[in-house]
């Protein structure tokens, strides 16, 4: 735990320092998206990494959160902070309803079921007039001259820097919760369920209940991320928010970083998001698709050479240095090993 806390502290310190080093909007934008998606990855990790239930439908919770805070603000002029919590609760309720029939499914059948639920929810939102259907909602913008307190209250900023810190606080809270969960009784139970449903059951764990708790927490966090995202972009429509792309992005970046490890999502996100932003910024204007070709190729290369996720490198290094401490001849070993 102590070791983990130090790493966490370093990550947060680096992210917190970036706005001081550069104020380029593209960089800050990438950092904000990175933090939102890293947080989503953490949420997804709870249900998939810890409990072993692959979800391909987290865009559903993300979207419910985004829509709740937006609607609450758009229709009733209530601060998004209320919508944020409300969205989390609604997403958790939806998660509970969908979990009931889905949890008896195993493996990919569960994964496709979550995907199906997300697609159905998307279609509901597309056809639902109360949420402006397919047209989407542009959030009402508060006056440019408003003071910081009012801006914070309505979660709208002229600058990107407040967003960096808000997302950083959210991410820190979530990662602390996750590392707490990982080492709690519940974390161990979930891992037992992941390894073997039957064995877990035989030692008196109720898998359905614990998977449900994991799902609720995961949905709640995802919805909060959704609210943040909607407030940040200031426009939502069902196609962007419930898209399969978002569900898959969450999955892929966590896999890239390392599934089942609390640092996986942040490592994955800090490669995945800047990589996609960077290739697009550099080459996207050409209209030839070269940017996404390179992006795809880099992902293939990373996976081929680091199939356990980038966290694998970290673990390898850790093991190496452990050996160094014990054996004393680490240098030779390290060079030959690499």
């Amino acid at each position, binding site marked *: 735990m102590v*070791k983990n806390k130090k*790493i966490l502290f*370093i*990550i947060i310190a*680096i*992210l917190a320092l*970036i706005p001081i*080093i*550069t*104020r*380029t*909007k*593209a*960089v800050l*934008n*990438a*950092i904000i*998206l990175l933090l939102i998606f890293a947080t989503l990855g953490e949420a997804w990790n709870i249900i998939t990494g810890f409990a072993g239930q692959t979800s391909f439908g987290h865009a559903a919770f993300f979207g419910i959160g985004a829509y709740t805070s937006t609607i609450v603000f758009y229709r009733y002029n209530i601060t998004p902070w209320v919508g944020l919590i409300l969205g989390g609760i609604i997403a958790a309720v939806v998660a509970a309803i969908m979990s009931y029939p889905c949890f008896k499914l195993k493996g990919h059948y569960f994964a496709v079921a979550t995907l199906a639920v997300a697609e159905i929810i998307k*279609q509901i939102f*597309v*056809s639902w007039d109360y949420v402006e*259907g*397919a*047209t*989407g909602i*542009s959030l009402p*913008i508060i006056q*440019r001259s408003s003071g910081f307190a009012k801006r914070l209250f309505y979660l709208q900023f*002229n600058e990107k820097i407040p967003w960096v810190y808000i997302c950083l606080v959210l991410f820190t809270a979530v990662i602390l919760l996750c590392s707490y969960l990982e080492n709690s009784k519940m974390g161990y139970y979930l891992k037992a369920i992941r390894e073997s449903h039957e064995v877990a059951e035989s030692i008196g764990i109720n898998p359905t209940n614990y998977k449900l708790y994991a799902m609720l927490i995961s949905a709640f966090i995802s919805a909060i991320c959704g609210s943040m*995202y909607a407030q940040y*972009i*200031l*426009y*939502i*429509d069902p*196609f*962007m928010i419930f898209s399969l*792309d978002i569900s898959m992005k969450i999955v892929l970046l966590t896999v890239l970083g390392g599934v089942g490890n609390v640092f996986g999502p942040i*490592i994955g996100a*800090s*490669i995945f998001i*800047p*990589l996609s*932003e*960077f290739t*697009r*910024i550099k080459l*996207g*204007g050409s*209209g030839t*698709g070269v940017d996404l070709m390179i992006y795809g190729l880099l992902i293939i290369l990373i996976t081929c050479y680091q199939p356990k996720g*980038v966290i694998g*490198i*970290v673990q390898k*290094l*850790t093991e190496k*240095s*452990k050996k*160094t*401490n014990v054996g004393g001849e680490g240098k030779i070993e390290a060079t030959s090993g690499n």
Partner: protein
Amino acid sequence: MKSKLVLLLAVVFLTTSLLMGCGAQQQAPTETTEETEAPEEAEEPTTVETVRIGAILPLTGGAAATGVKLRAAMEVAQDIINGEYPELAKVPLAKEVGLPNLGNAKLEIIFADHQGNPEMAKSEAERLIEQGVAGLVGAYQSSCTKPASQAAEQYGVPFVAGSSSSAALTERGLNYFVRVAPNDDIETAMFFDYLIYLNDKYNADIKTVAVAYIDNEFGVHAKEMVEKWVKEKYGALGFELVGVVPYAVDVTNVDTEVQQIKSLNADAVFHASYIADITMFVNKYKEFKVAPKAVLNYCGGFQDTQFVVNLGSDSDYFAGGAAFSAEKLGDMPELAKINEFYKAKTGADLDGPALEEFSSVLVLAEAINIAKSLDGDAIIEVIKNTKFDAPYYATGAIKFDAKGQNEILASYMVQTQNGKYQAVYPEEIATAEPVVPIPDWDKRN
């Protein structure tokens, strides 16, 4: 041990962020420490060598085919502005090099790709604004134009939309946003007027109307406008909306949809469809021998010249609103020249959306030239108060109303006849008579 970990993480964070920082800086070497509020104010108008504007388009993803064409059209505009073309004297900025009032500064368009994703449209808009662009053009899909123009509004940068057609765009009360294309509201009214014209002059006897639309913001708006106009005006003139057939985005087949259209048996079908869907629809119309008296298309797939290339003679007799018809080139030498440049780039004739994006670049550049400044407020002031010459449009001019909508209708009705887009309405500018009703499929040659 920890040092290695720290090193790794630090490297990951810093390289990625620095790479991006460099990316932004390379394109904007002058602009590193400036405050974010108004980057353009720091520049001296008289000394600029290049005036940069940003273009946000869907250059990859589902709408890439269109995005790439729009990019080519904008490049043609850029070439015309930067080069000397005495033969295009009537086109603003064509005969002199660059922008004469700014010391013949060259215009540079920085293209950005939003992949059809509103999030990326917004972040690309912000990035371009930060790089000091004097204005923005784009973004084709209305769902992307919305957040992008919101960002432009926030930083006081003018946004000239070319072809985004959602009526809602100009209803948001934005001060820095204008749009060249007719919105779907105006287009719907034109469709009904065209039907009245067909009824009066050709005894087409069209009374019932159905709408087939893609279930996204483009289609839903089009449908709403038909409902609105039938209720407000055209219902009283004898038109009836007998049904609507929405279909899902990314539809894989349209069999059921066509069956529904067939069973509605409407005299005229309005289509709000993209190229992939409309191709499938035409194919199925043929297969199931569905031939309404008229099929009218909102600005979308039908206007793409690939429609005629792909479907050959099956594409005949469909109609739609467009700002361009290759058959009008004989009367419009400027347009013919522009089309020539465009054809050299893409191998195809211009189409409505491409011409609209072309004109959006010209409008923005001319406004910068008149304003003699890169200041957003000065430029938008000019844009809103000037009547721009547009000899490449049948109507010859562009003028924005208080909401930012181009009040001079740039488009007219075209109908495909023998693989060509013929202008058929209004009568004054028609290049051919409309064919109505559409002949049955087995009576076509």
